[in-house]
């Protein structure tokens, strides 16, 4: 029974994402469901800030409580769930642009569905879908570390948000270069979340672009080739664009743009919180101290232990349910709380500065402390 409960606690996002889809289908004020659930997430995560976890744990034989087949199946299952999420939003866009009459119909004989949608409700629907499309990234991330069927599923998941380049950039750039300026996903001290959103997204895409250009040059092939994974990554996003263009023309494209912006903002917010301000010497090994752990109970369960970054970056191919507490740097808050703080840059910098002071004095080696001092001066952290 203990094993059962440990495994199902990682199903918060699949359940809430399904509820969000239901909200989009039911319509009316329920289109705001996803956005409201996100706010509830912020509240719960902040309320349980003192409750930290140690991961899924192991049984008396030292075997992880995580059930590999079940967790993998749920992650694969999230791909169609995220597709349905987009289709449900596109259906609402279609209704809006068609000026569908307002009324109530019953679906499957039991589900009341409001037809028609106002402009404000369409905004709520897009925000809700964006919030949960962004949370889908936790599965795209986890599966990007696999070599089997999980890898193409990860690319497809990220492609739904126009970010298929993430899979290559994450594994071959971020995991090799983190806490250094060669990794665009690591934010230096002093940078705001908003600036990081742009630079991290563009930097990761640039990595994939440069990687493919150099690879194809070596192979004597044209850049404009289906062997170019930067290009194929964007082609993966084409069905989503076709869907929204067809559903609503300019309005559809605007909704899709907003959806992609929200989901990618969430992705880059995670990158921002995972390594903010940490430094490492070029070509030196990646250690636990080069990541922030975020292990409040709600963050650990909601984000399927993605917050256990210190262990994840040293054992990149370890499944999330096998990650452990390694005593690395920890700001003490969860991702929802950290995200809210990061939305207000002066507040974020004021708080994280103290955490970084502690990191400089406790975790950093002499060379890293020297780099940190230089950046602190530039970022006015000193």
């Amino acid at each position, binding site marked *: 029974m203990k094993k059962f409960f440990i495994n199902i606690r990682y199903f918060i996002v699949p359940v809430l994402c399904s509820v969000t889809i239901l909200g989009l289908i039911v319509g009316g004020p329920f289109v705001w469901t996803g956005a409201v659930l996100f706010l509830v997430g912020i509240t719960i995560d902040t309320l349980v800030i003192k409750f930290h976890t140690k991961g899924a744990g192991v049984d008396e034989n030292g075997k992880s409580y995580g059930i590999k087949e079940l967790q993998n199946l749920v992650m694969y299952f999230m791909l169609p769930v995220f597709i349905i999420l987009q289709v449900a939003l596109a259906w609402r866009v279609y209704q809006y642009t068609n000026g569908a009459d307002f009324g109530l119909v019953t679906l499957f004989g039991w589900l009341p569905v409001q037809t028609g949608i106002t402009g404000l409700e369409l905004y709520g629907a897009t925000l809700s879908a964006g919030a949960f499309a962004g949370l889908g990234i936790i599965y795209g991330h986890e599966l990007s570390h696999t070599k089997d069927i999980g890898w193409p599923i990860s690319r497809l998941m990220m492609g739904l948000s126009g970010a298929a380049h993430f899979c290559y950039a994450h594994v071959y750039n971020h995991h090799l270069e983190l806490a250094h*300026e060669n990794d665009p996903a690591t934010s230096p001290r002093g940078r705001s979340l908003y600036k990081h959103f742009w*630079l991290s997204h563009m930097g990761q895409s640039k990595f994939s672009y440069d990687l493919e250009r150099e690879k194809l040059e070596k192979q004597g092939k044209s850049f404009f080739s289906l062997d170019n994974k930067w290009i194929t990554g964007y082609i993966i996003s084409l069905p989503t664009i076709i869907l929204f263009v067809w559903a609503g023309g300019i309005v559809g494209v605007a909704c899709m743009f907003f959806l992609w912006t929200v989901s990618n903002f969430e992705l880059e917010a995670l990158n921002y919180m995972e390594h903010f301000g940490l430094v490492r010497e070029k070509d030196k090994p990646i250690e636990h101290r080069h990541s922030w752990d975020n292990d409040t109970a709600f963050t650990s369960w909601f984000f399927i232990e993605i917050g256990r970054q210190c262990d994840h970056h040293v054992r990149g191919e370890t499944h999330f349910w096998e990650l452990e507490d390694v005593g690395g740097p920890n700001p003490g808050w969860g991702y929802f709380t950290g995200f809210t703080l990061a939305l207000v840059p002066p507040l974020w910098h004021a708080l994280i500065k103290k955490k970084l002071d502690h990191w400089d004095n406790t975790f950093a080696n002499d060379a890293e402390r020297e780099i940190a001092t230089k950046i602190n001066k530039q970022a006015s952290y000193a």
Partner: protein
Amino acid sequence: MSSLKAFLVMGVWTIAVLVGLYLIGAHLNYRDPIWAIGIAVALLITHMVNMSLYFRITGNKPYLWFK
């Protein structure tokens, strides 16, 4: 400065494509599946060209930690 230049070029390119789509009547025909596919391909190419423009104009400068 290079980022500003990139944004300007990207803006001009995007507006040119959007005006082009408008002039050929994309906003009137998007429900035709063939038109929808064509418009989507045009938008995707616009996005990819924008990314390439940004990469080429700004180089590695935006990502450097020490200015």
